[in-house]
C-alpha cells in the first residue's frame, strides 16, 4: 500500500516531468487508437466483402511450364478439360456452385456479321482479315485455327452470364434461353438483328468455318442490346470477337456442333467456394481428382479486393503507422525514464539503504508510470475515439483522390475518356468503397491497453535495469 502512496507522492512531486510522460503516452494512445480502429475496421470490411463476394476459382493453362516440358520431351501433351471433369471438380464440399461455358465460332452465308472495320473506315494499309474464314472464298490462314464470324456461347447455367448480370447486355425482345431448353434456340444482338432484318421467331443457318458442309439451324428466341462495343472488340478484324456478333445458345445445341467438330471449342469453368479460406484445400482436392499440373488454379481475390484497394492501403498504412509510433514513443519514454532514474539516484540509494528491496523499488517506479499511463490511456482513448472516424474519412478521401488522379492522368495520356482498360470496370474509381465505418469495441480497447502496458514495460524495464545496477552504498558514498 505504501508503495502506491509513494508512487502517487512522486507523481505529484515531479508534476512537470510526469505531465510530459503523460502527454507522450496520450499522443501514442490516441494515435494507436486511430491506427488500430482503422486497421480493425478495414480488415473487417475486407473480410466481409470477400465473404460476401464468393471466391471465384478458374483453371488456366500454364503455357510456360508446358513449353519447358515440351522442349525436354516432345511427346508432352495436355489432357483437354471435359464437361465430365468440370462436374467431377464441382462435386466438392468446398464448392457452393459452379458453371461452365462452351464456346465455338460459326459462319453464315445468310446473314452478315457486324464488321467494325467498315464502321471505322480503316486505312488501306491496315491488314486484311487474315484470321476470318470468309464464306465467299476469302483467303484462309492455315497457321491459325479456323475462325467463324460469330461466337457461339452456351452457359451450363445462363444466370451466370456476366454481361447480363453486370447489365451491359439486356433482353429487349423475346425471351432469354433457359437452362432447361433442349432446342437449337439462340439469342442475338439488336445490332445484328437490325443489320440482317431478323426478328424473334426467325430461323438462321450457320456453318462450321472448317467444313462448310456442316450446317446448323437456329431459332431466334430473343434479341438483346449490348453496351459492350468498345473499339478493341474488333481486335485484328476478328468479327467473332465483336460483342455484337455474339450469339448465346443452349448447351444441348452447342454439344451438337462439338460432336462434329470439337477443335474449335473452348471450355471454361468457374467454381464459387463456400469459404474463401478453402482455396488451398480445393486446389489440393482437384489435383487429387486428376487436374493436370499444366493447369493453374487461380482465383479472383485480387479482383474482389480491387475496390477495397484504398481501404487496404490505409489499413496497411495504419499498421505501419502504429509500429512507428510505438517505436518512437517507446524510445522517447525510455530516454525520459533513464534521465528520470538518474535524477532519482539519491532517492533510490536512500530507499535501498533503509531496507527497501529492489523488487519493491522497481514496482514503485513502474507503478508511477502505470498510473500515468492509465490516466493518459483514458484521455487518449477518448480523443482517439473522437478523431478516428473523421481521420479515417479524410485519409480515405485522399487515398481515393490519389487513385482518381492517377486514373485521370492515364486517361489524359490517351487523350480523354473511353480508353479505360476492359475488365477493369470493377476497379473503376466510381466503384471504390469510400465509406469505412469505424467500429470501436472491447477488443480495440484491450489492444490499446496492451499498447500502453507495452510502453510501460519497455520504459519501465530501464528503471529495473538501473535499480539492479545501482548499489546503495556506492550511490550514497558518491553523493557524500
Amino acid at each position, binding site marked *: 500500500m*505504501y508503495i502506491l502512496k509513494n508512487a502517487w*507522492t512522486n507523481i505529484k512531486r515531479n508534476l512537470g516531468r510526469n505531465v510530459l510522460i503523460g502527454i507522450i503516452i496520450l499522443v501514442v494512445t490516441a494515435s494507436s487508437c486511430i491506427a488500430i480502429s482503422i486497421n480493425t475496421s478495414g480488415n473487417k470490411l475486407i473480410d466481409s466483402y470477400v465473404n460476401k463476394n464468393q471466391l471465384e476459382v478458374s483453371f488456366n493453362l500454364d503455357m510456360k511450364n508446358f513449353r519447358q516440358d515440351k522442349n525436354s520431351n516432345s511427346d508432352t501433351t495436355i489432357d483437354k478439360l471435359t464437361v465430365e471433369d468440370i462436374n467431377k471438380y464441382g462435386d466438392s464440399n468446398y464448392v457452393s456452385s459452379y458453371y461452365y461455358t462452351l464456346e465455338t465460332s460459326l459462319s453464315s452465308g445468310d446473314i452478315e456479321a457486324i464488321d467494325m472495320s467498315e464502321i471505322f473506315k480503316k486505312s488501306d494499309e491496315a491488314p486484311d482479315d487474315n484470321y476470318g474464314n470468309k464464306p465467299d472464298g476469302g483467303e484462309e490462314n492455315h497457321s491459325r485455327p479456323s475462325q467463324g464470324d460469330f461466337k457461339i456461347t452456351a452457359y451450363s447455367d445462363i444466370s451466370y452470364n456476366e454481361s447480363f448480370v453486370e447489365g451491359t447486355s439486356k433482353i429487349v425482345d423475346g425471351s432469354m434461353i433457359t437452362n432447361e431448353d433442349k432446342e437449337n434456340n439462340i439469342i442475338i444482338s439488336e445490332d445484328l438483328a437490325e443489320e440482317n432484318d431478323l426478328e424473334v421467331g426467325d430461323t438462321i443457318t450457320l456453318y462450321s468455318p472448317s467444313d462448310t458442309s456442316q450446317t446448323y439451324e437456329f431459332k431466334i428466341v430473343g434479341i438483346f442490346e449490348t453496351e459492350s462495343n468498345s473499339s478493341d472488340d474488333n481486335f485484328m478484324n476478328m468479327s467473332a470477337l465483336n460483342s455484337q456478333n455474339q450469339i448465346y445458345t443452349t448447351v444441348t445445341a452447342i454439344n451438337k456442333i462439338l460432336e462434329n467438330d470439337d477443335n474449335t471449342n473452348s471450355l471454361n469453368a468457374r467454381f464459387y467456394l463456400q469459404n474463401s479460406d478453402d482455396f488451398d484445400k480445393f486446389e489440393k482436392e482437384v489435383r487429387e481428382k486428376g487436374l493436370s499440373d499444366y493447369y493453374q488454379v487461380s482465383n479472383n481475390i485480387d479482383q474482389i479486393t480491387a475496390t477495397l484497394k484504398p481501404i487496404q492501403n490505409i489499413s496497411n498504412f495504419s499498421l505501419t503507422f502504429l509500429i512507428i509510433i510505438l517505436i518512437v514513443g517507446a524510445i522517447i519514454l525510455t530516454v525520459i525514464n533513464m534521465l528520470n532514474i538518474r535524477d532519482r539516484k539519491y532517492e533510490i540509494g*536512500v530507499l535501498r539503504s*533503509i531496507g527497501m528491496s529492489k523488487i519493491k523499488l522497481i514496482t514503485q517506479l513502474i507503478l508511477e508510470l502505470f498510473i500515468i499511463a492509465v490516466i493518459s490511456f483514458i484521455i487518449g482513448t477518448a480523443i482517439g475515439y473522437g478523431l478516428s472516424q473523421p481521420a479515417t474519412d479524410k485519409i480515405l478521401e485522399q487515398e481515393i483522390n490519389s487513385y482518381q488522379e492517377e486514373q485521370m492522368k492515364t486517361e489524359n495520356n490517351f487523350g480523354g475518356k473511353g480508353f479505360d482498360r476492359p475488365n477493369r470496370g470493377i476497379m473503376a474509381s466510381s466503384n471504390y468503397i469510400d465509406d469505412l465505418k469505424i467500429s470501436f469495441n472491447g477488443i480495440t480497447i484491450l489492444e490499446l491497453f496492451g499498447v500502453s502496458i507495452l510502453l510501460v514495460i519497455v520504459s519501465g524495464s530501464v528503471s529495473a535495469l538501473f535499480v539492479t545496477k545501482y548499489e546503495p552504498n556506492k550511490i*550514497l558514498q558518491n553523493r*557524500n
Partner: protein
Amino acid sequence: MINILKLKNVNFTYDNERYVLENINLEFDQGKLYGVFGPSGAGKSTLLSLMAGLEKCKEGEILYKDKNLSKMNRDYYRCHNVGIIFQSYNLLPYLTALENVILSMDISGIKDKNKEDKALKFLKKVGIDEDKAKRRILTLSGGEQQRVSIARALAYNPDIILADEPTGNLDKETEAAILNIFTSLAHKDKKCVIIISHSNKVKEKVDVVSYLKKGKIEII
C-alpha cells in the same frame, strides 16, 4: 550481556588487490555504546557498511545473533535489525520529517494504525516537536536533520544502531545533545549502539573503544 553482532576474521577489498579491512575480529553486546575510531581512509565507513549489510562480506564472517549476514536477506536485516544514521543524514528532502520516519516504518512492514502517533513519539524523543515534524527536511537545521535521522533509525525498533560520523557536521552543543541520545539508547533502551567517528567528544562518551588503522584493529 547478550552478544548481538560478531565479526570473525573479516577481510574486505574493493578491487581484489588491496585489502581495505584485514583480519577484523570484533564483538558487540546489547546495552553498550561502542566507538570505532581512526584516521580518514582507515576503513571505518567500509566497516560500518559491512556491519549494516550495505556491502557483502567476501572473506570471514559477520554474525548477527549467530546468523551469518551473508546468508541472510540483507534488505530485511536493514529494515528490521539495524538502524543506520549517516553523517549526511540521507533523508528524503521532498518529505516532511514525520513522513521520513513513517516511510521507514512502512518499509519495515509495521502494520500499526497509529503510525503517525508513534513516529511523532520517536521524533519527540530526539527533540523534534510536532510543528517541526511536519516541516520539510530542507527547512530544518543540520542538527535537527540528524535528530530526524536518529528517529528514523529507531522507528522499527532495531537491536543495533550504527552511526557514521553522526556529529561530524554539528556544533559542540548539538553534538553533546546527540551523544546523550546515543548514550540513552544504549544504556536505557538496551540497544547496541556503534558509532564510527574521530571525535574526542565521542571517545569520552563510549563504553568500548576500537581503533582502526590501515584496515586493522590496533587498540581495543
